[in-house]
């Protein structure tokens, strides 16, 4: 069976029509004065899902999270957790906990007291609190820092205290607002995997807000791409990347080349598209596009091959151009090839061997080629 990208695991309740969503945003709108932060948005999140809200700043993703936590009330629409309408429920009575972007650790309390704070509010007996705190400290590997105050910790340690504090109450849903935003790159990558393991072992539902697409791709089961308070697409990382639903999503996630053109003829499942200069490309996955429609063909740089000679007939789409720019990144090289019509196409090649037999350099004539199923046709 064909599939998109790599499959993480068989967890996919959203494909099951019987499965009941755990968190539901039902036509939710939130306005601040004249500004509409969230615009009639509907979204379903399933139990034990690692769900990412991805978007640029101001797209409404943080507002969604804050409405779920109870710090903001929707202007209209409903938010349900486990079938219960949350309207009017104050933050301190909701079955969710949040990890704040600034960590929001209580500066006057030790690490221990910070973690115990939520448990104390529950009225948990002291010996159980102690046991839970010890367990949490062990979970985030901060046992020897129990008596320290937040300002005596490094950024990474603070992040872990915030995490321990937010999961200590075993909430049904954990909300994470840019959880790794304040960490440096190396630490961020390590922590991504720690978060995924934690989510697995505790069996919680995670809703994470991020502007970092790599972070969302790495961690999430599904990603919702947001723009101007609306959902552009909800799908698995592989679907988002390999089958973006719109130009916005294709452009937002990863690099993409867009060929504009008009559908000349439909073929079985595919189509022929003619560009502005008259060059034709043959594509599959043409979706609902009909002959005469103007469409955009989107293809990722790594699906395009660059060669100095004309590729053989088995590669169905080939165009000639000139090497305009080369960026050598170590693991891969990115070529910018300028086509006859002036469009610059990005193509990347994995440097899987140390020497290359077909070296290309600036201003060389070069051919780009790709297969019909390497990209998708976008009508929006």
């Amino acid at each position: 069976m064909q599939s998109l990208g790599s499959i993480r695991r068989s967890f996919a309740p959203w494909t099951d029509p019987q499965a009941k969503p755990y968190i539901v945003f039902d036509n939710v709108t939130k306005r601040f004065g004249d500004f509409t932060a969230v615009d009639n948005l509907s979204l379903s999140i399933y139990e034990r899902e690692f769900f990412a809200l991805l978007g640029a700043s101001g797209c409404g993703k943080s507002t969604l999270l804050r409405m779920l936590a109870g710090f903001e009330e929707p202007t209209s629409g409903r938010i349900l957790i486990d079938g219960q309408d949350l309207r009017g429920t104050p933050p301190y009575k909701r079955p969710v906990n949040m990890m704040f972007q600034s960590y929001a650790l209580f500066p006057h309390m030790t690490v221990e007291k910070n973690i115990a704070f939520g448990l104390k509010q529950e009225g948990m007996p002291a010996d159980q609190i102690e046991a839970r705190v010890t367990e949490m400290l062990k979970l985030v590997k901060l046992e020897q820092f129990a008596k320290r105050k937040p300002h005596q910790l490094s950024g990474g340690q603070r992040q872990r205290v915030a995490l321990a504090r937010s999961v200590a109450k075993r909430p049904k849903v954990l909300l994470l607002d840019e959880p790794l935003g304040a960490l440096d790159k190396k630490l961020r990558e390590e922590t991504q995997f720690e978060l995924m393991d934690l989510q697995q072992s505790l069996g919680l539902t995670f809703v994470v807000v991020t502007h970092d697409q790599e972070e969302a791709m790495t961690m999430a089961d599904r990603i919702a791409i947001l723009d101007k308070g609306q959902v552009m697409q909800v799908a698995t990382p592989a679907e988002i990347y390999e089958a973006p639903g719109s130009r916005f999503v294709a452009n937002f996630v990863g690099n993409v080349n867009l060929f504009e053109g008009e559908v000349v003829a439909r073929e079985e499942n595919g189509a022929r598209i003619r560009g502005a200069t008259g060059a034709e490309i043959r594509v599959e996955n043409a979706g609902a596009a009909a002959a005469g429609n103007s469409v955009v063909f989107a293809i990722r740089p790594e699906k395009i091959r660059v060669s100095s000679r004309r590729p053989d007939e088995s590669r169905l789409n080939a165009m000639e151009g000139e090497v305009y720019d080369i960026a050598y990144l170590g693991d891969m090289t990115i070529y910018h090839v300028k086509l006859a019509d002036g469009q610059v196409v990005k193509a990347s090649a994995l440097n899987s061997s140390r020497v290359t037999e077909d070296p290309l350099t600036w201003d060389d004539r070069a051919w780009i080629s790709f297969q019909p199923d390497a990209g998708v046709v976008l009508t929006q």
Partner: protein
Amino acid sequence: MNTTWSRFNVTSIALGFAFLYLPIVILVIFSFNESKLVTVWSGFSTKWYGSLLQNQGLLDAAWVTVRVGVIAATFATVLGTMAALALTRYTRFRGRILFSGMVFAPLVMPEVITGLSLLLLFVAVGLDRGFLTVTLAHITFSMCFVAVVVQSRLLTFDRSLEEAAMDLGATPVTTFFHVTLPVILPAIVSGWMLAFTLSLDDLVIASFTSGPGATTLPMKIYSQVRLGVTPEINAACTILIAIVAVGVIAASLVNKRREVQRLRDEQGAQRG
């Protein structure tokens, strides 16, 4: 940076300090004067301190001042903190600008006017002038100073701390007493100390609003000086200066040590 001591620098520092401290130094020196004449030095003695302890009038006045100060500062701190919270938290209520202007107006209001208006009020409502009225007056004029101090701290307060507390299940009341209050406590303490100091040395408003049996120390000193300065007054003032100086130095030492400790902790955390 220029680190050499130019003649200009030395002169300006010397002049500045002379202006600030010469009167105080003279006062302290003459409190140890043997002679009864304030301006003629006739030898070292601590006898005026001894006789001060016998002066029941001055001691009573000092006791009144301390009680007024503590009570007024405490109430002013509670009211001022509440005003500061209202001004920083409910940023969009109607008439906020008017309210904040009115809270801070007493800062620039001439004391004579404050004192006079309070006096008229007390007379109008038939409140006998005494301990109660002077305390009320001190609460009135010192709470705006507390409000200023606490408000400046609240402006830099990270609201997500409160959100985190509520998110973890704390009610708004618990959140206030377990998170907000401890974090802004240093500002509240400095507000209290400022209010106490203001109450301690107020003469004008106390003169308007005080009555028999509630003479504060500044009033007592002022009335005695009108009959002629005695070395006893010098001694009383020296003790006051000593108390204030010790308080200020102790507070700044504690602050300094805490700051150094915090810096060291932070550096340690970065390394570790």
